[in-house]
C-alpha cells in the first residue's frame, strides 16, 4: 500500500446522499478474480449513457474535475454491500481522499485497507466545502493527514478527527496483517484458553 502523504489536488463534487456500493461498483463487475482494473467501472450506470458514451450530466464527467484525487460527497457514503471492489474502484480511478459527514461502517474500514483517507466533517463544513467547489469547479484542496487538516484556497481550514492506529497505518502504508502477526504468541495463548473454555468450537 502506498504511503499517504500531504497533497494538493482537485476536489470533485458529488452532492448526493446515501450513495451505495452498488452504485460505486455495479454487480456485473464483481465477477473478476483480480484486484485491479475497477476504476474504469466506477459509478458505471451514472457515468455512461445507454449507447456507452459518457453521460455529460454526471458530475464526475465534468472536465474541471479531471485528475481529481479528493471526492466530496453527501451523507452516509458507501452504504450497502461489503464489496471491497468499491474502494478498489475509487482508488484505481485516482481518488485517495473522500470528504463527507458519514460513511457506512464496512466501507469506511475498507478504505483504510486501500490507502484511501475517508474524512468526516460536520454538516456546515461539508456545505462550505461543496459551495467552494460549486463556485470554483476545479479548485484544489490541500489534505494534510499528519496534522489532520484540510485547507482550501478560500482560506477554509478544516481540522478532522481520525483514529490514531488508522492514521499511522495510512501514513506508513503498512500491511496490517503483518502487524497482527507480530502478536502470534498472544493469539496462540488466547487459543489455548479459548479451547479449554469452549472445546466445541474446535469440534468438526
Amino acid at each position, binding site marked *: 500500500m502506498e504511503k499517504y502523504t500531504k497533497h494538493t489536488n482537485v476536489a470533485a463534487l458529488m452532492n*448526493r*446522499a*446515501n450513495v*451505495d456500493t*452498488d*452504485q460505486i461498483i*455495479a*454487480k*456485473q463487475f*464483481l*465477477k*473478476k*478474480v*483480480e*484486484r485491479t482494473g475497477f476504476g474504469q467501472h466506477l459509478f458505471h*450506470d451514472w457515468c455512461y449513457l445507454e449507447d456507452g458514451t459518457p453521460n455529460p450530466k454526471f458530475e464526475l464527467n465534468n472536465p474541471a474535475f479531471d485528475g481529481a484525487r479528493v471526492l466530496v460527497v*453527501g*451523507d*452516509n457514503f458507501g*452504504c*450497502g*454491500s*461489503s*464489496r*471491497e471492489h468499491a*474502494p478498489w474502484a475509487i482508488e484505481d480511478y485516482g481518488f485517495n481522499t473522500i470528504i463527507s459527514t*458519514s*460513511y*457506512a*461502517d*464496512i466501507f469506511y*474500514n*475498507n478504505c483504510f*485497507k*486501500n490507502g484511501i483517507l475517508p474524512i468526516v466533517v460536520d454538516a456546515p463544513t461539508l456545505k462550505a466545502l461543496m459551495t467552494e467547489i460549486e463556485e470554483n469547479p476545479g479548485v484544489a484542496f490541500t489534505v494534510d493527514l499528519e496534522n489532520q487538516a484540510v485547507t482550501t484556497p478560500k482560506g477554509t481550514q478544516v481540522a478532522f478527527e481520525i*483514529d*490514531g*492506529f*488508522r492514521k*499511522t497505518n495510512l501514513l506508513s502504508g503498512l500491511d*496490517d*496483517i503483518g*502487524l*497482527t*502477526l507480530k*502478536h*502470534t504468541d*498472544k*493469539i496462540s495463548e*488466547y*487459543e489455548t484458553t*479459548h479451547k479449554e*473454555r*469452549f*472445546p*466445541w*468450537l*474446535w*469440534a*468438526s
Partner: protein
Amino acid sequence: MAKTMYEKIWDSHLVHEEPGQAPLLYIDRHLMHEVTSPQAFEGLDLAGRPIRNTHSILATLDHCVPTKLADRINLPDPIGAKQVRRMMENCEKHGLTLYDMESQNNGIIHVVVPEHGFVHPGMTTVCGDSHTATHGAFGALAFGIGTSEVEHVMATQCLPQTKSKTMLVNVNGTLSKFSTAKDIALAIIGKIGTAGGNGYVIEYAGSAIEALSMQGRMTLCNMAIESGARAGLVAPDQKTYDFLEGKEFTPKGDGWEKALAYWKSLPSDADAQHDTVIELDAADIAPQVTWGTSPEQVVPVDKKVPSPADFADAGKAKSCESALEYMGLTGGTNITDIKIDYVFLGSCTNSRLEDFRAAAEVVKGSKVAAGVTAIAVPGSYQVKKDAEAEGIDKIFLDAGWEWREPGCSMCLAMNGDQLKPQERCASTSNRNFEGRQGKGGRTHLVSPAMAAATAAAGRFVDIRTLEQG
C-alpha cells in the same frame, strides 16, 4: 459491572489491547462465498501465509450460481464460471469445506450455515458479505467484512476492531398476523434511517422479538445492516437452543450442557446501559412496502407514495425527488395502485421454509396475474426439499410461479436472474438500490405474504383486506 450482550462477547474475544493500536478481536467462524474471496486467497498465497484454522471456515457458492437447472451444469457466463472454478480450486487447495453446486447442502451462505448449526450464541462470526448480520439471530456477534479483512482472518484468525456503541431496539406488543419480521425490520429502518445505526451494534429485544421464530429473527438481524449497524443481536433463548440441538456442528453430550450453560450467561444484564434506546409498538406495524431507492423510503401498504414537499429536510426531499424519477412514480399515488411486472420470493432475507409456507398460504388457489412473472427461489437445497415434501412447490407451480434451484438469484442479479430496464418488482430481498436487480429495474421490498398477494393481483395489495379462505 453490568454488561450488554455485545460487551460480553467483545470481552471474551479480546486477544490483545495496547495504547495506539486497535484492539485485536478473535474470530470463531469465517463464512465464505465466491465473490469476495478470490483476491484474499491470492494475497494469502502471494505472501506465503497459511490459513490459521481451516475448521473455522465454511464456504458455499451462491452469488454467481444460476437458478435454472440447465444453466448450473454449464454456466452461461464465462467470467462468473471462472469465479466459481477459482473458489472450488481455492477450497480444494486449502482443505476447506465447500458446499458446491453438486452438494445437497448448497444454498445461500446465510441460509445453509444455520441449517448445519455452524454458528452458535456468543461466537464472533465474519463473512465478506454485509448480510452476515443474519447470524445475530443466534446471539452471535456477526458482521460483514471486506476482502482484505477476509485475508486477514484467514492468516491470523483475528481482526483489529474498534468497539461499537450499542443501540437497544425494543419492540413490544403483539404483531398482527399479517405483519412479519420483515415488516418489523422495514419499520425500524423507516424510523431510524439507513444511517441511523452507523457506529452501533443493535440489540433487538421486547415481547414481539421474543415471539419471533428463529427464521423471523434471522430476517430481522439480516436487515440490521440496512440501518447502517455493524451487527444485530437477539438474546438466545429456548427457541435458539431447540433450533441448534442435534445439528451437525453443535456440541453433543457433555459439550452440549457446557455450551448451554455458557449461552445462558450471554443475554444483556438487566441493568446494562445501552448508548441509545428506540421503542416501537408491534401493534402499530402494518405490512410495509418501499417506494424509493433506499430501504428507509418505506411506508405502510395502505398509505401513499410521498412527495418531496412532505419532507422538511432538504436532503431527504432531494432524495425523494430523484427516487421518484428513477422509480417512475408520482407523489400521492396509493401504494395499492402501483402495478408490478415481476415478483421475486427469495434471498438471504426471506427464503427459508417458513417464508415459503407463509407465501404458499396466499398463493394457494390463486393465479399469477396476466403479464406478471413470479419466481420462487428457495435459499438452499434443504429448504427446497422440505418445501417439496409439504407440496409447496406444487402450490406455486399450479398458480403459475416458477420454482427454481437455490441461490442469491435476483437479490443482486449477477447470476442471470434480473429485471429489464423499467420493470417493476415486488421483492422479498433486502435492497431497493438503483439497478440492484438489473439496470433500470425498480424494486419494492415486501414480506413473503405481501409478495404472494401482489403476484396474483398484479399490483400491491393490503393483505389485511384479503378474504380469509
